[in-house]
């Protein structure tokens, strides 16, 4: 019982002395210029808020240009019609490489003629199928030259589902706007939508740390002499 009492008295004594010190110092400042320091603080707050707005709201808007995909593709509609899920269209080639975005050849079986009343489908058939032009899709996941990524290693060897990294794209009825970084030319999906860099889902961001995070947790290989993590050449080329 005696101990807490000692403490409280000790603390109160401490605060007493600091209060006394600060009040005497504050008294001198107040006497000299009350208005000046008020303005300084006000301008500081205004400047601080303004730079926050510029940095977090205005700059990202300026940095990214918005581009619409040539065709607004409806994933949900197509996923109902196919039998083999994502791999019906996004398939592996026989040499183990990943075909990524399908080419027209995979679409023309159904879309030789306009089937429904969707203006997007009409555009696809008239502009691309009839003219035998490939659709210049904008690829959200395009990485720099130095990055090597193997779909086979993740899907075939590790047995991961598409949704684990890509999210519920199959349920979307419309493609998201492609935001291109005006300086680097890469999609905003690489850096992530959140300007603070906060990631909630695996598909929010595609930076090196995001790959490394999972590789450290899941793969658990420690083949690198330098880092004692997974060797650099696994993802770099």
């Amino acid at each position, binding site marked *: 019982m005696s101990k807490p009492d000692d403490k409280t008295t000790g603390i109160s004594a401490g605060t007493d002395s600091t209060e006394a010190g600060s009040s005497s110092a504050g008294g001198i400042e107040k006497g000299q210029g009350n208005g000046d320091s008020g303005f300084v603080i006000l301008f500081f707050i205004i400047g601080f808020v303004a730079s926050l707005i510029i940095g977090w709201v205005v700059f990202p808007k300026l940095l990214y240009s918005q581009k619409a995909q040539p065709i607004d593709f409806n994933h949900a509609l197509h996923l109902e019609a196919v039998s083999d899920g994502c791999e019906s269209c996004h398939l592996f080639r026989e040499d*183990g490489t990943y075909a990524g975005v399908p080419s027209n050849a995979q679409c023309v079986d159904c879309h030789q003629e306009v089937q429904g009343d969707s203006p997007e489908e009409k555009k696809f058939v008239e502009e691309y199928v009839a003219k035998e032009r490939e659709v210049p899709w904008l690829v959200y996941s395009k990485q*720099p030259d*130095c990055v090597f990524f193997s779909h*086979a290693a993740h899907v*075939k060897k590790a047995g991961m589902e598409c949704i684990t990294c890509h999210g519920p794209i199959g349920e979307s009825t419309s493609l998201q706007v492609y935001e291109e970084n005006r300086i680097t030319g890469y999609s905003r999906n690489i850096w992530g939508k959140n300007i603070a860099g906060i990631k909630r889902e695996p598909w929010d961001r595609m930076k090196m740390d995001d790959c490394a995070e999972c590789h450290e947790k899941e793969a658990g290989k420690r083949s690198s002499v*330098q880092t004692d993590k997974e*060797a650099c*050449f696994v993802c770099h*080329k």
Partner: protein
Amino acid sequence: MKEEQNHEKAKQFGMVIDLDKCTGCGACMVACMAENNVPFKEDESKKLDSITWLRVYKLTNGKPFPDTEICYLPRPCQHCGGKGNHGHSPCVSVCPATATDYSKETGIVSQIYTRCFGCRYCMAACPYHARYFNWWDPVWPDGMEKYLSPNVSVRMRGIVEKCSFCFHRYQIAMDKAYYEGRGELEENEYQTACTQACPANAITFGDLNNSGHAVHELKKDKNAFRLLERLQTNPKVYYISSREWVRRAGDNYLKTEKK
């Protein structure tokens, strides 16, 4: 060597080059440059500027005619395992940027170009001159950039590059293996560009730890040697020559010293 056998699953990719077979034609050098997007200069005779991941050296025994003998020695990166084969190769040990790394899984010394900042410590450390510095950005003749390999990233000015044992070919081969439900590669699925280009079959490439691969036996040849073995860099490139003066040229010996 005992160390190697302990890691049964770990691969140690390496090369055995038969110098008796090498004619010095340079096909390996050309194949390497084409495969790995190695930039070239207008004046390739300026050796401080030129980049050759694989360089064919010409050795002579220094004797006057008619005893003159010549030997050609192709020199890729030796992918040193370092003393005790722990992966502490000279370049990996000195890199302050973690740009060069040794993989215990494949035994390959990697160079990450985007990570390198060009201090060139590794070039100073490498006793084989296997590393090259990009003094200039690569300039490709008009239209040639369309012929570059997409599997190898192009390097820029101010960084160091070197032979990777065509690691991208390993990645591509592994992709196919995964697709077919395998975890291991056949010997012929992963071969370097120089190995395949050699018309004399002087270069043999494979996993030194795998007894099914040709290099496993070839490295035990009585005429097999490695370059500068005394430094204990533990290279993974072996050379074979039936000529004693060539074997002696692989290291520095005093005149009175026997090998």
